[in-house]
C-alpha cells in the first residue's frame, strides 16, 4: 500500500494540526459577532470578516451527518470498502473524516449516530482526526 496522502499545513491551519498531534480537536470562533464556531481554519470570521477570533478545544463529540462507502479505494487507502463521512460537531461545524472502529456497512453506519473523535498518528508532524462510534 502506498503511503497515505497527507495534509501539508499552512500558517493559517498550523494550530489545527498541532492540536491533532497533541490529541485535541481545535476549532475557532468569532468574538465579534454571533456567528460562532467555524471550520476549516482561517484567521478571520467567515460570517463578518472580523480578525478577532480565538482558537479553542472542541469536545470531540459529533453525529454522523452523511457518508458514502467507497468500494474502489484509492491506492493509499487499502483494498477494503471504507467510509468517507461528514460529521457534524457538537459545536456546529461539519468536517470530512473516516468513521473507524466499526463495520463499514450501511447497517453499522446509521445517520445521526453519536461519534467521538479519535486520533491516529501518521508521521511525526501529522496526526489525522477520525471518528468512532461513541460508547453508550
Amino acid at each position: 500500500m502506498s503511503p497515505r496522502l497527507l495534509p501539508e499545513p499552512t500558517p493559517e491551519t498550523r494550530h489545527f494540526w498541532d492540536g491533532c498531534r497533541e490529541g485535541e480537536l481545535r476549532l475557532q470562533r468569532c468574538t465579534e459577532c454571533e456567528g460562532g464556531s467555524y471550520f476549516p481554519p482561517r484567521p478571520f470570521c467567515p460570517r463578518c470578516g472580523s480578525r478577532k477570533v480565538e482558537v479553542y478545544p472542541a469536545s470531540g463529540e459529533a453525529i454522523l451527518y452523511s457518508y458514502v462507502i467507497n468500494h474502489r479505494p484509492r491506492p493509499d487507502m487499502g483494498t477494503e470498502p471504507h467510509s468517507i463521512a461528514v460529521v457534524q460537531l457538537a459545536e456546529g461545524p461539519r468536517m470530512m473524516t473516516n468513521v473507524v472502529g466499526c463495520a463499514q456497512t450501511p447497517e453499522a453506519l446509521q445517520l445521526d449516530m453519536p461519534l467521538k473523535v479519535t486520533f491516529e498518528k501518521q508521521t511525526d508532524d501529522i496526526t489525522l482526526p477520525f471518528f468512532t462510534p461513541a460508547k453508550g
Partner: protein
Amino acid sequence: MKQKSVAVVGAAETTRLGKIPDQSLIGLHADAALNALADAGLKPSDIDGVATAGESPVALAHYLGITPTWADGTSVGGCSFMLHVRHAAAAINEGLCKTVLITHGESGRSRVGASGFARAPSSLMGQFEMPYGVTSPPTMFTVPVLRYLKARGYTVEDLATVAVIQREWAAKNPRASFKDPITVDDVLNSPMIAWPFRMLMCCLVTDGGGALILTSADRAKDFPRKPVYVLGTGESVETPLVSQMEDFTTSKAFRVSGKKAFDEAGIAHSDVDHLMIYDAFAHLPLYGLEDLGFVERGEAAAFVRERNTAIGGRLPMNTNGGGLSYMHSGMYGMYALQESVRQMRGIAPAQVEGAKISVCHGVGGMFAAAGTVIFSNEAP
C-alpha cells in the same frame, strides 16, 4: 444584463463522440470550433472573442489563429460554459467584442494531452478532504446524498428512476453512448461504486467537445441558421469543499444562479417547455428541480416518478439522454447547452414539439459552482 440582446448563431459538437484516442484535448477543442464556425458560416478571422475552460483561452486563440479583443478563461468545472455564455453576453453588450467563440474539448476517456485529478496537499481540499480517501467525483459529489434522501423521504429507487427515464430519452438519440432500456432493478444491481451509488447512477466517461458562437441579436438574423436568443443567465459559487456546503439538502449555488436567470428572463416556470439539468449523477436532477423552483422541496422524486420529465411529460428534461447515457467527458455543461440549442432550433433527435423556451442549468466541481442559461427561439 440587457434583455434578449444576444443570440447563438453557431453550435456544434465534435465530429465524433465517445472514444477518440487519435485526438488530443486541444484537438477536440479545435474540431468543435471548426464545426461551429462552419455552422455559422464564419472563419476564425471573424471571431474577436474567445472563452474556454480546461484549456487556456490563449492556447485556443493561438491554435485557431484568432486575435481576440476579449478573452475569458473562467474555469469552475463543468458549468464553466454556462458562465462563458453569461460573460460573453455582457461583453457583447458592452461592445468589447462582436462575435464570441466558446469551446469545450476533453479527452476524458483516452486521456490524450489531458492532466490528472490532483489537489495540492496544502490547499484546503488537500488538507481537509483528500486525506480521507476521496478520489474523484463519485466519492465527493455523492457525499451529501444520504442526508438528502433522509431529509426528503426519498429512496435509492428514486435515484435509479432518474437514470431509467434518461435512458428512455437516450434511446431516441443516435449519438447517445448507451441506448438499451434499463429498469430500476438493473440500476440497483449494477456494480457498487460508492454506497449508495451504483454504476448506472454515475455518468459516463468519454471523449468529445462542443462549441458555441454568440453575437448580438441585431446581427443574428444575418446568419444562415435560425438564431437562438439568450433571455437570461445566472451564476454563483458556493464552496470547493463538499463537506462545507451550507445545507446538504439544497445547493445554494443552484438557487442563486437559477433565480438570477429567471429574474433576468422575466419568465415563469410555467413558461418553460424544455429543461436540461446537468446530471453527472442521478441525484442532481432532483436537487435541480427543487432548487430551480420547478417543484417544492420534497416533491422532486414523485415528479420524476410520475413521468413529468419523461417522453410525453409536461416538462421534458435531459432529452439527449444526459450525462448518464448520452455523453460526459468530465465537463458536461457544453453538451447540455448544445441540446438546448438543438431543441430551440427544432432539430433535436427527440424534439419537443413546439418548444419555445429552454432552461439549461449546469453544475461545476461537486456542487461548488452553478450556471444557468435560458434560451428562446422567438425573436425579442
